[in-house]
């Protein structure tokens, strides 16, 4: 029995990079398809960046750029350890998994600002500051969405959140929180309408001065972050691995890919949001809406006890 347990734990550890890498690659391929660069676009781009020579700016703070670029991929990976469920439980089954996911996703703020600042160049700097403003706008409703999930489940542990959805998925039980989560998933991965920090109006923003392997790691981190943000919706709102016929891990992957495809598609189909307008809508509409959703969920949770 201990041997079987050990083998299962090893399987989870080995499966994690495969699942995370696969989902990130899926995000890159889907993105490439919507831009018309074909299925092999991401691989061609990766090969090109690996061979590209590094471009340097004058008086750049190389340490901070490297820290920022690596922090993006690291934050996405660490966020994934708590929410990517492989079979029964995630790799890091923390008692406060929901808070851990939140903390790692906030580390992206630091990653983007450092990358933007370190280049000592105008457009990356604008992009870095844009993301901090975006963070202040999306983070409060996003946190309330996660709190609502935790209140509904009565636990901060991700497998218990999944277990609490046996009767009714949280996407149905708390639709406002689900909608806010999907919007903030776009915001945290600076994707589509919330891609201002990398906007074409600032010549690519944060990544404008990145080149070669630096840009490759940055892009990998961004796709991994989008993939993790999409995959987190499955245990939080879509009942985890619940579903007829297929085993739990297969259902988890199918749902994660569906959310990912939705995010990529929606990102291509919507116009960019101006951050001052988004902040206003976020604080004046989304926060009160989330507080009402939290009140309803808490009332139901207390009544059901």
């Amino acid at each position: 029995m201990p041997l079987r347990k050990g083998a299962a734990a090893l399987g989870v550890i080995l499966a994690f990079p495969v699942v995370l890498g696969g989902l990130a690659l899926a995000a890159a391929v889907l993105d490439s398809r919507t831009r018309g660069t074909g299925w092999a676009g991401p691989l061609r781009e990766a090969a090109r960046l690996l061979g590209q020579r590094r471009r340097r700016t004058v008086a750049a703070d190389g340490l901070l750029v490297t820290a920022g670029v690596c922090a993006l991929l690291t934050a996405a990976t660490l966020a994934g350890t708590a929410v990517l469920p492989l079979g029964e439980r995630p790799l890091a089954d923390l008692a406060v998994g929901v808070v851990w996911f939140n903390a790692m996703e906030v580390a992206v703020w630091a990653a983007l600002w450092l990358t933007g600042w370190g280049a000592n160049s105008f457009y990356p700097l604008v992009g870095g500051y844009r993301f901090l403003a975006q963070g202040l706008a999306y983070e409060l409703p996003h946190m309330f969405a996660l709190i609502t999930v935790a209140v509904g489940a009565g636990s901060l542990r991700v497998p218990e959140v999944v277990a609490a959805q046996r009767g009714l998925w949280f996407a149905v039980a708390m639709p406002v929180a689900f909608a806010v989560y999907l919007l903030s998933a776009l915001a945290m991965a600076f994707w589509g309408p919330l891609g201002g920090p990398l906007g074409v109006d600032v010549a690519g923003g944060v990544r404008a001065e990145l080149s070669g392997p630096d840009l490759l790691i940055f892009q990998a981190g961004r796709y991994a972050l989008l993939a993790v943000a999409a995959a987190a919706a499955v245990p939080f709102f879509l009942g985890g691995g619940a579903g007829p016929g297929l085993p739990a891990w297969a259902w988890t992957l199918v749902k994660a890919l569906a959310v990912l495809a939705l995010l990529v598609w929606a990102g291509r189909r919507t116009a960019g949001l101006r951050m001052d307008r988004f902040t206003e809508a976020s604080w004046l509409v989304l926060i009160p809406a989330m507080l009402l959703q939290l009140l309803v969920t808490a009332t139901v949770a207390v009544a059901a006890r």
Partner: protein
Amino acid sequence: MIAGIAFWALAALAVAGGVAVFVVDSMARATFALLVSFLAVGLTFLLIDLQYLGVLVILMMIMEMCVMAVFMIMFMMNPGGLMPMTMVHNPRGAALIAAVVFVSLAAGALAVPPPPRRGAPPADPARALGLSIMGDKMLVMMIIGVAILATMIASVVLAVHGGRYAAGRSRSR
């Protein structure tokens, strides 16, 4: 054993980060050196199974240092950051005061015997923490929390200028 090694490594990292704040010559580096120090402290909490507090320290400190970097750089005499700067004024006096405070705190920590342990760790430290902070005042705290949030948002909304594209909207002036 592993916990002991991790503790000393994190303790050294926390102190090194704190020292780096006053050694580096750029505000961005100083801010993020301070963040490294705080992250090491947050990870130390995980070693004593205070997961909620530890992760909360990490979460809050990352947000706080990002916002602080903006303000620190904004209020610098040279916001471009191209001229070297230092966090220390009156270096000799500052070093003396810092040394005295450090030695007295360290002496206190080493000389005073720790009190004997009372009770056992709770099964769910996050729940015990919530109850010990709020207890039966939970409802009041919740209402005050929402009131503070509403006040902050209202004050920002009233204070902010609509900007150049806000013509014709109600709060533009």
